[in-house]
């Protein structure tokens, strides 16, 4: 991207390439990447896993893992070449010139050192501060990043903090030596949406306050939209498009950018019938296709795309794009995406009522402490949850981590101990069938988040699927192969896959196998626990579409658990919102988004980022105060009252029960009908964007 003439860039990267492996079998993960960044400027780098976004930034810091080398290029910070700098001087640049915040703060912090010792370390050993002064400064830094009781927190170990707090500590560490550039690598990926919104705002505030330049790496366009001035889209190790945020989001030119934007359902737009995932898989970096790396998946490809690599060249305004057709797309409105669909959501094919009904479900786990490991408390993971799912429909279950949504799903399949409550299962009482291995698994199955972890690495796909069939006596030995092939076919895989082991498959393929395994005994009900969370955006849509198709064909009933509200809205008929082990609100999917009745739902929705800089910049977020309640020590009354801006005395003592509103919501709030709440919640949580 080009800088305004006459202004010297802070960071200038030219022709950077990174490869792994020896000269004989080199695999390039970053290819000829160039970009520059002015002081105080924010660049968002977006790409899917393996696109080279993190590797580029690690190369800038010269912190590539062992085996990785920079094969070409130059990196200048304030005009000083970093790649040839002696190691001692490069150390001086790290922390002061460029600071780094990585994802997953738990593994990025030293588990054996207190937070205070870790923050203070470079202050003492690099800046020469006295220990007492360094610790005092560390407390200031913690205070600065919004950690309450900063002084007392200095002596905590990372594992004693919540995920959001750990990320704040990591940010405090990064700004401790006042860097000129902060590189944040997926800083919010492992966090809940409300915490994510807080951390993003913190990073944005800090960079303005300290006049830092920022590189924000993310796979999520929405995360980047609110913060970045400029955006670079990476695919297969190259930048394919870069421009100001408004231009990239408003009028993408590269077909990959358009496809990426279209692959994720948008909460600010009406729901569509089917998602538009990008067909195919990202290329193997060891064997990239000739020409443009995206051409095998591109709907606009021409003969030239497969032969010649398009250079990153100007495409109007300050935009650079690497596509032979960029000129045409820049003229027209945007690179169109295949298969635009109607906006109506198809109702269930087979309708029914209350096929799965849960009443007052509670799941508790004992807490053991002390020398004798006595039971000293109870974690109320699920505390009096009532739900119902009509046959052939999908109930979306959303909530933040620790809200009890996964435990609820497990309890429905008899995988978590039920302390209380009643479940009706397709007309049968759960208590009667839960211990019968011949009945319950045939009615309900589960698909997990991590398909790699849930498939036996030593079994071929065929053996894993065949095992399920023979255990349940569903196929004789001779019929197994045919049944396995039919199953693979039903999840859109070819029969050769049966001979492969899980590690030979892509993430999306593995998740299809996990779905095939759940389908093998033809259950009527499937619990999908964060089934697309571990997948890339371009693949997520493929899995969601598959699940919806299977539901239409077979009349399956789903409980779809996810923290991703846009995917949940897309697939669900009705959505339940959980908080602190309780259901706060359930509503038909569109009503939940357009007219939330519960203050928590409203706060949750307002935290979800939208991939549109115009909306993100002008958005007013309702941030719930503090963190979610500790399930081992839940507050009395309403679980949300401590964070709720509408809480009154009654909320602190009396637990609200679910009440039905006249527009088919169920709300557990004492104050939902009050004028104050009604008025406040009409302010839309998610502004509606225009359709492109």
């Amino acid at each position, binding site marked *: 991207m080009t800088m305004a003439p006459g202004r010297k860039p802070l960071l200038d990267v030219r022709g950077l390439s990174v490869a792994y492996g020896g000269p004989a079998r080199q695999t390039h993960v970053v290819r000829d990447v160039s970009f520059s960044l002015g002081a105080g400027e924010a660049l968002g780098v977006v790409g899917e896993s393996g696109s080279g976004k993190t590797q580029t930034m690690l190369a800038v*810091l010269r*912190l590539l*893992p*062992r085996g990785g080398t920079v094969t070409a290029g130059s990196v200048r910070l304030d005009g000083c070449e970093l790649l040839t700098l002696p*190691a001692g001087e490069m*150390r*001086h*640049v*790290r*922390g*002061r010139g460029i*600071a*780094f915040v*990585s994802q*997953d703060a738990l*593994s*990025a*912090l*030293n*588990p*054996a*050192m207190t937070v205070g010792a870790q923050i203070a*370390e*470079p202050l003492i*050993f*690099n800046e020469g501060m006295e220990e007492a002064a360094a610790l005092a400064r560390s407390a200031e830094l913690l205070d600065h990043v919004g950690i309450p009781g900063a002084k007392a927190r200095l002596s905590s*170990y990372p*594992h004693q903090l919540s995920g959001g707090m750990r990320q704040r500590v*990591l940010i405090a*560490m*990064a700004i*401790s*030596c006042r860097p000129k550039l902060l590189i944040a690598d997926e800083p919010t990926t492992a966090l809940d949406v409300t915490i994510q919104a807080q951390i993003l705002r913190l990073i944005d505030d800090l960079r303005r306050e300290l006049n830092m330049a920022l590189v924000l790496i993310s796979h999520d366009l929405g995360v980047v939209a609110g913060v970045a001035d400029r955006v670079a889209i990476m695919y297969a190790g190259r930048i394919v498009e870069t421009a100001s945020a408004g231009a990239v989001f408003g009028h993408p030119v590269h077909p990959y950018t358009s496809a990426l934007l279209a692959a994720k359902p948008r909460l600010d737009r009406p729901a569509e019938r089917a998602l538009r995932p990008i067909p195919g898989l990202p290329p193997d970096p060891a064997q990239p296709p000739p020409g443009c790396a995206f051409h095998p998946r591109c709907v606009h490809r021409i003969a030239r795309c497969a032969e010649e690599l398009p250079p990153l060249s100007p495409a109007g305004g300050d935009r650079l794009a690497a596509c032979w057709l960029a000129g045409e797309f820049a003229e027209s409105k945007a690179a169109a995406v295949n298969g635009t669909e109607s906006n109506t959501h198809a109702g269930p094919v087979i309708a029914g009522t209350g096929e799965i009904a849960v009443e007052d479900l509670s799941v508790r786990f004992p807490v053991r402490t*002390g*020398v*004798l*490991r006595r039971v000293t408390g109870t974690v109320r993971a699920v505390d009096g949850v009532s739900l119902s799912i009509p046959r052939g429909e999908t109930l979306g279950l959303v909530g933040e981590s620790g809200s009890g949504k996964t435990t609820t799903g497990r309890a429905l399949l008899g995988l978590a101990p039920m302390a209380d409550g009643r479940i009706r299962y397709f007309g049968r009482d759960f208590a009667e069938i839960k211990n019968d291995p011949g009945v319950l698994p045939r009615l309900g199955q589960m698909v997990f988040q991590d398909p790699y972890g849930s498939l036996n690495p030593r079994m071929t796909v065929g053996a894993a699927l065949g095992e399920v069939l023979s255990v349940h006596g569903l196929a004789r030995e001779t019929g197994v192969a045919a049944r396995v092939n039919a199953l693979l076919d039903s999840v859109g895989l070819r029969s050769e896959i049966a001979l492969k082991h899980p590690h030979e498959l892509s993430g999306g393929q593995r998740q299809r196998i996990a779905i095939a395994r759940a389908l093998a005994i033809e259950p009527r009900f499937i619990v999908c626990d964060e089934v697309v969370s571990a997948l890339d955006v371009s693949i997520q849509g493929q899995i969601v579409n598959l699940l919806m198709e299977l539901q239409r064909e077979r009349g399956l009933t789903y409980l779809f658990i996810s923290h991703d509200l846009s995917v949940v809205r897309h697939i669900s008929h009705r959505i339940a919102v959980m908080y602190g082990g309780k259901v706060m609100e359930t509503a038909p999917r569109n009503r939940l988004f357009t007219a939330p009745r519960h203050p928590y739902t409203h706060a949750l929705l307002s935290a979800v980022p939208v991939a549109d800089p115009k909306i993100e910049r002008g958005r007013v977020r309702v941030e719930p105060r503090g963190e979610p309640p500790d399930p081992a020590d839940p507050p009395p009354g309403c679980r949300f009252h401590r964070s709720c801006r509408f809480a009154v005395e009654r909320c602190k003592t009396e637990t609200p029960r679910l009440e039905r509103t006249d527009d088919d919501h169920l709300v557990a709030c004492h104050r939902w009908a009050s004028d104050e709440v009604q008025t406040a919640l009409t302010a839309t949580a998610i502004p509606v964007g225009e359709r492109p």
Partner: protein
Amino acid sequence: MMSFVVRRLFQTVPVILGVTLVTFLLTQILPGDLADVLLGPAATEESRQQLRAALGLDRSLLVQYATYMSHLLSGDLGQSLVFAQPVATVLASRLANTALLAVSAIILASAVGIAIGTFVALKPDSFRDYGLTTAVLFLNSMPPFWLGLILILVFGLELRWLPVSGMDSAVGGGGLGDLAAHMVLPTLTLAAWSLAVIARMTRSALLDVINSDFVRTARSRGLSEARVILRHTLPNAMPPVITVIGLQAGFLLSGAVLTETVFSWPGIGLAMYQGISARDIPFIQGGILLLALMFVLVNFLVDALYAYVNPKIELQ
């Protein structure tokens, strides 16, 4: 951390009780009993019965165990036949000798082993790594008694630098310097194998940790390589190394029979060898009990160290 250590201490109680039961039952499993050993094969059935009655061997197992335990609690382990002294007295003096050797060996092995392991892990797959790793593998595969004999041949008999047997010289011996000179060869022999194991474990543990995110965080903040390694990497690589050191310490404290025999070192190992050869049942019983207790102690120390190195351990 204290709660964990205290809990762990309580957990050793049933283990120790179990050990006493097993050592007690051991004498029941052995063919013949104490009366047979004392009287020899020529004794009459009548005198054997008399002695059995006198020793209480005709009472029920439960009563015998109770008697054994009550003696044990008052520190009475019986009379050794070979050494003609109370078992407790012999064990105490021998244990001190063994501990002297074992503790020196384990300190030497840990210090040098961790240093070598760290040194090679800093440059994996380099000339330094291959050279030292091969040398360590060589130490690892050398039988200790053979190494002992070679050391005796070279330093004792050829070069005549160091004494080759016992704890002190017959003439003009007894001083601290003399003891130290006697310790050199057996300590080296004992340390060699442990050193190799510790070095290899340190190398692999360090290579695991050095790729962690928090090490990258430390580097990204401009900390010196020495601090990155010593403050961030090594402490987090220690748990498996501590486990290995604990196992080695257990073996060494239980008396390395071969090494003590080769160097005629008057330790537990040598004494046990003599006791077993003479079917000295009270001594064997006491010796085994002591060795088992040493293992329990070392394991407890290892766990306590774990809790110190890893603040998270309390939760697990």
